[in-house]
């Protein structure tokens, strides 16, 4: 049987058939227990491209987490430390870190000033890694907050319908109506000047929480609206009716009947959300309303670098490459996750 298939079918089909057959025998071994999660994980593992890009992202995360090690043990400097008047030995030749006419040194490809320095004589490589920590932290935290808010908004609006839905949906529409970057910049400018005060909680304008919250809120509608749609469809399904007939109240139905059915969508959304949040953080940083200088982030490093694009092109290019690599890796990985969970799903996020 297997051989006959080989001769008839093109190569891709043949492997697909064979792996399905393998999967079937694997499943027949146990009566129960291969849940949708494990099936999706199995499909994801088989998607080499997605796994490869997932690895790229992991490597980037690990490198950024290792920033302090690089700073103390290799570069012997910190991300905020100026070396304006210092010199460095490159290939046995002593050079100024920043020349007298203000041009910073380019990549030395050695421990100190591996990727050169910026106009303040700060080590670009060190700042790149610390900046990456900030960018990733903001991206992941913002995406987490977006997810939590969007899930609640979607569940409540979709399940309660009527007035509650109208209030939540129209509020989301207001956010949705603004271009993402414009709204974020406006909020960023306002909040970084005054800080934010919600009841007893006060967040200073310099805190990283400001860009995190802004990015999180701005992206809520993009995730809450599709979730609400799904909840609207799910609440009409028979198993929800059956749960009601078993005496389940609205909270239990939302949390134990509907939420588990949303989990694959949420998982699919998450990496794409992180990528978007990192991009938006970069945009904010570029415009000077994200992470506050002198604290580095990829966005504000690019922003600084653009001013010196002719004399020190590495200043913009290096963080730019990191940003592109991270977002690309997350997007390809995210697409793989989507294909693994639901090949027919149409979840796209515009950038």
């Amino acid at each position, binding site marked *: 049987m297997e051989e006959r298939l080989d001769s008839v079918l093109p190569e891709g089909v043949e492997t697909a058939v064979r792996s399905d057959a393998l999967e079937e025998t694997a499943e027949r071994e*146990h*009566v*129960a*227990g*291969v*849940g*949708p999660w494990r099936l999706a994980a199995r499909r994801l593992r088989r998607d080499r491209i997605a796994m490869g890009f997932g690895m790229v992202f992991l490597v980037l995360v690990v490198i950024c987490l290792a920033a302090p090690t690089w700073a103390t043990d290799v570069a012997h400097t910190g991300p905020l430390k100026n070396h304006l008047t210092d010199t460095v030995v490159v290939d046995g030749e002593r050079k100024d870190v920043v020349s007298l006419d203000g041009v910073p040194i380019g990549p030395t490809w050695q421990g100190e000033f591996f990727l050169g320095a910026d106009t303040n004589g700060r080590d670009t490589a060190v700042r790149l890694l610390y900046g990456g920590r900030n960018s990733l932290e903001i991206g992941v935290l913002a995406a987490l907050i977006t997810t939590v808010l969007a899930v609640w908004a979607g569940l409540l609006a979709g399940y309660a319908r009527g007035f509650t839905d109208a209030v939540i949906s129209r509020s989301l529409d207001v956010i949705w109506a603004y271009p993402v970057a414009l709204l974020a910049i406006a909020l960023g400018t306002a909040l970084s000047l005054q800080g934010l005060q919600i009841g007893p909680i006060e967040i200073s304008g310099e805190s990283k929480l400001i860009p995190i919250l802004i990015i999180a809120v701005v992206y809520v509608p993009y995730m809450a609206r599709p979730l609400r749609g799904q909840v609207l469809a799910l609440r009409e*399904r*028979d*198993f929800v*009716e*059956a*749960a*009601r*007939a*078993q*005496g*389940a*109240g609205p909270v*239990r139905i939302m949390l*134990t*009947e509907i939420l*588990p*059915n949303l*989990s694959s969508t949420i998982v699919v959304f998450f990496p794409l959300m992180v990528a978007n949040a990192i991009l938006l953080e970069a945009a904010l940083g570029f415009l000077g309303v994200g992470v506050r200088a002198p604290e580095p982030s990829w966005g504000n490093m690019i922003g600084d670098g653009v001013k010196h694009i002719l004399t020190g092109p590495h200043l913009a290019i290096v963080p730019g490459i990191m940003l592109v690599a991270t977002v690309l890796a997350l997007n390809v990985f995210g697409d793989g996750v989507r294909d693994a969970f639901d090949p027919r799903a149409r979840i796209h996020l515009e950038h």
Partner: protein
Amino acid sequence: MSSGPLLTVRDLGVSFTAEEGVVRAVDGVTFDLLPGEVLAVVGESGCGKSVMAMTLMGLTRFPNARFEGTAHYKGLELIDAGEEELRRIRGAEIAMIFQDPMSSLNPVMRVGEQIIEQIQAHEGVPATEARERVAQLLDRVGIPRARDRVDAYPFELSGGMRQRVMIALALSCGPSVLIADEPTTALDVTIQAQILHQIQSLRDETGAAVILVTHDLGVVAEIADRIAVMYAGRIVEQGTVNAIFYDPQHPYTWGLLGSITRVDRARPERLPAIAGLPPSLADRPEGCHFRPRCPHEFDRCRDVPPLVARIDGDDDHLDRCWLPVEEKRERREVRPGEIGLGRKPGAAAA
């Protein structure tokens, strides 16, 4: 049985305000459900059977719904009970088996979890004990290797298996009333019989009363004790299985009985059917609702016939037809010993 009815329904009416007007889905439904009894509610699609059953559990409380009448269950008035009270009743006291087992189980939860959740919601039982009970339940409803299948996902089970899981779910808290809303329509015939016998033997074991909503008279003959025939929201005839099958009083019942194939009779060339369709529940004919489709219609049918006992000496057999009993017995006989809707006398000769 001496203990009196478990569930007493009187003049239950349900109407929905819709675009086409007021839809009277259930109208003046009255019946008693005795402990341990199987009451079958039969009728064509769209005659209010399911709405009636759902209403008993308070599952039809939509903003556009209006209710009349009463339904007493153990001292509780189900029709206007609070949502909180009903929630305690649902699942624990009155449980429901749904029509389509394919969609009535949550696809992303293991079947065991779903039943455990139900048990824990109604009784504060520790998880391990609940799990043990689930395994026993699944075993009792005839699921092979029940202990392993506690951890199965619904998509790993066949339709019949899933319906068994639904039955286990319904039985998990030992309800006294089981409402089965067409429990076998989505299953193939061999599985249907198994599921029916399952319901029957569980009734015998637990003593729960069953309301079986169906349009399949074969199913009814199999397990019901009493039958209520519904047409356009009303019960048109009600009685024991024997009374309904051997001495049906309402022409609609004749039509239903005449339109099933029977192995003990010669096969007719064409299976007789009741001409026409049930009326729209928003615009029902005056008087007897069956009038436009009934070949035996006469002047009196313009008045609503009450649901009363019309046969001397049988107070348990009620119907809504004005025809005299003797004439009914004559007219329903389409062939000797065979019941059918028949034709109007005189029309046959033409």
